[in-house]
């Protein structure tokens, strides 16, 4: 139990003792305390493993409230089809959109700033049609919404970031696990490159530090790492099915360091092999030691 959780629990216990209807809150807090750090769900249906993983976390209603404006940030970086595993799996995105609406979200926005032509990326990834069919707003990013924001990190002092991310009530990050030439792997922390405006290609000069800086700035409500298919070589855009491995897995959590540390194991690596995981851990962004986490594995 970390400090924040302890204070919350203590405060709620106090509230529970003083108020008659505080009993509910007490139960809720106890449930939060019992919540796993990571849920790893495995199964053939992307929709079902997403649902099961979120249920294991306490259910979508724990995170999304009625009337919320929710931003879902998948990886739609490349002009590739779902089988090629360069973009987040469209079924995973669709499952999350559906759950958000079921929880009463007023609006669900899905976007990314692609590297290839945005139209082709949105269409060929299958994400635009899947999310739109469920009522999500799938718009191309609007150049005017990038606002220069203070980051005051190790590598990034300030950068134009997409304001929708900060104006939303809830943010759900849905990256895909892939090989990457410099970062070695692109997992949850690298997903935030997709909300950077300006000449983001420069951050490769201090990539690990920059990714940590971004993750300290952007705190999603929930992160769902898509490992239904992973790309093991020639990433991050791949193209050859020989480099794609089907794992039928999603990993749900809150701590980006923990998620990426676990994500490394999918590729036979350790969290400590990744610069941004190590730096993130050192800066207190999260936990990288898997033995110190409560990891719940479920099979659907």
């Amino acid at each position, binding site marked *: 139990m970390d400090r924040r959780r302890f204070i919350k629990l203590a405060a709620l216990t106090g509230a529970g003792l003083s108020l008659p209807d505080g009993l509910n809150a007490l139960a809720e807090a106890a449930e939060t305390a019992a919540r796993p750090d990571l849920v790893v769900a495995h199964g053939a249906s992307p929709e079902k493993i997403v649902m099961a993983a979120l249920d294991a976390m306490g259910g979508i209603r724990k995170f999304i409230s009625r009337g919320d404006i929710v931003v879902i940030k998948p990886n739609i970086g490349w002009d590739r089809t779902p089988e090629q595993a360069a973009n987040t799996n469209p079924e995973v995105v669709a499952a999350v959109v559906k759950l958000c609406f079921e929880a009463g979200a007023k609006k669900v926005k899905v976007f990314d700033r692609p590297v290839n032509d945005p139209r082709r990326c949105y*269409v060929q990834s299958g994400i635009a049609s899947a999310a739109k069919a469920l009522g999500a707003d799938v718009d191309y990013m609007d150049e005017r919404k990038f606002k220069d924001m203070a980051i005051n990190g190790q590598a990034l002092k300030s950068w134009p970031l997409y304001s929708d991310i900060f104006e939303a009530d809830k943010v759900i990050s849905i990256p895909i696990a892939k090989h990457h*030439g410099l970062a070695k792997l692109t997992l949850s922390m690298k997903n935030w490159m997709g909300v950077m405006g300006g000449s983001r290609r420069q951050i490769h000069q201090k990539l690990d530090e920059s990714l940590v800086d971004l993750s300290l700035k952007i705190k999603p409500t929930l992160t769902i790492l898509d490992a239904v298919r992973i790309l093991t070589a020639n990433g991050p*855009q791949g193209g050859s099915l020989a480099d794609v491995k089907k794992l039928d897995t999603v990993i749900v959590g809150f701590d980006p360091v923990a998620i990426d540390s676990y994500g490394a194991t999918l590729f036979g690596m350790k969290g400590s092999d990744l610069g941004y995981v190590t730096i993130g851990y050192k800066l207190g962004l999260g936990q990288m030691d898997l033995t110190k986490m409560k990891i719940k594995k479920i099979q659907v």
Partner: protein
Amino acid sequence: MRRIVQSLFLLLFLFLFIQTESKGNDELGYPVRLFLDFDPLILISTLLSAHAAAKAFTLSIITIIITVLFGRVFCGWACPLGTLNNMVGSIRKKAAAHRGRDWYRIKYTILIAMLASALFTLQPVGIMDPLSLLIRSFSIGVYPTFNYGIRSAFDTLYASNPLGAAALSEPIFTFLKKTVLSFEQSFYNQNILIGTIFFIILGLNLVEKRFWCKYLCPLGALLGLLSRFSLLRRSVSEDCTECGACGTVCPGNAAPDQKGKWKDTECLYCWNCDDICPQNAVSFDFSGKKATAAMDLGRRRVITSALSGIAVVPFLRITPLTRANSKNPGLIRPPGSLEEREFLKRCVKCGECMKVCTTNGLQPTLLEAGAEGIWSPLLVPRIGYCEYRCTLCGQVCPTGAIKKLTLEEKAKVKIGLAMIDKGRCLPWAHATPCIMCEEVCPTPKKAIWFEKVQVRDRAGRLLTLQQPRVDLELCIGCGICETKCPVLGRPAIYVSSVGESRSKENQLLL
């Protein structure tokens, strides 16, 4: 009635023009080059220059048949440039003081010169063919200007938000973006030149209405020649009082007021003379007898224009660019382009490929391909790269100068090769990590690979860096590495046409 038909054709033209844009699918979904397919001038000149024509041009036979049946109705009723000329001409209320100039022969000499040069393998018609000209002018000049203007206006409203006007303007902007605006603002070389020529053509209507159609248009000339055989004819009955009313309304200088000297080749079949005739003496029907002026271009004029058309061919080709060892390495043609000689025999510089290019990388040349290749497409990777899985330029090319490729074929076509400038590259020259070119390289097995090296920085610290190398066998020259290279100004990795698969000579590797 004629105005309605003209408007419909113009709207269809504009609709197809706006649809000449990627929606993210592999195919466009609309026959965007339809107007060009119906253009018999391109059909004939391509047959002469390349001895082959794209299949779609069979549609232009319909235009020929219609012209033979009904005369130059295409000019009067369908041609979108003709309609625009009409619209601009209507600003000029005053009828011509004199009954127009006697310059109508100019367009025939232009046509003869162009077709004569086409017979000797040149393809010059695109410069003046009204449909190529219109699409090119719209793609490069008019439409980007329109977009820039609208976008700046709405951006200003959005940013300054006077009296909360943005709340009103933003929904309108969203609507415009979904309907008439392009996906992104595009930018083109030659925009001023191509745009200015177009505005001059429109402006000539103020000198004389339909100046272009009467005196310059080579397609009008071709259809004029065909309408010599037209079955639909104009006849004037005995009731004619020679009041001359028809002469003032004729948009084609066809001399309808001069009995027996009506020029059938110049008639646009607009029926203005029929409408205005106070005696109702004018009629158009199939039974009319020939009451037309003889077409006299003058033998000398015909021979001179044909000879100059022929002479211009070697004249344009005495450029070193046509020599194997002095090819312009910057001339990167779109994927699927034919070998340069064959390419130039077909390309009509309509600009469809540049309009549809998803990255704005396809730009019109000026002299990069010689004067002969002016305004033909050229990939400028610093502006935009060739999207790996996009085949749209080949789909819209009306003449087959750019072949339509399948995705599998496209992946194998090299349009050039990338090379690294070690003196500028961050990991090579500046001991700074960067992997941009490798990250974006789209071939399934990346053409850019790394060599891990240990280098020392100024302070003597040992750094491990990945220095990029290009695998020339795998590189297809798409240029995304050059587009995305963070080294501003001259990029640290750049593409040239060397190694392009369409050329036998322009090769580097054994």
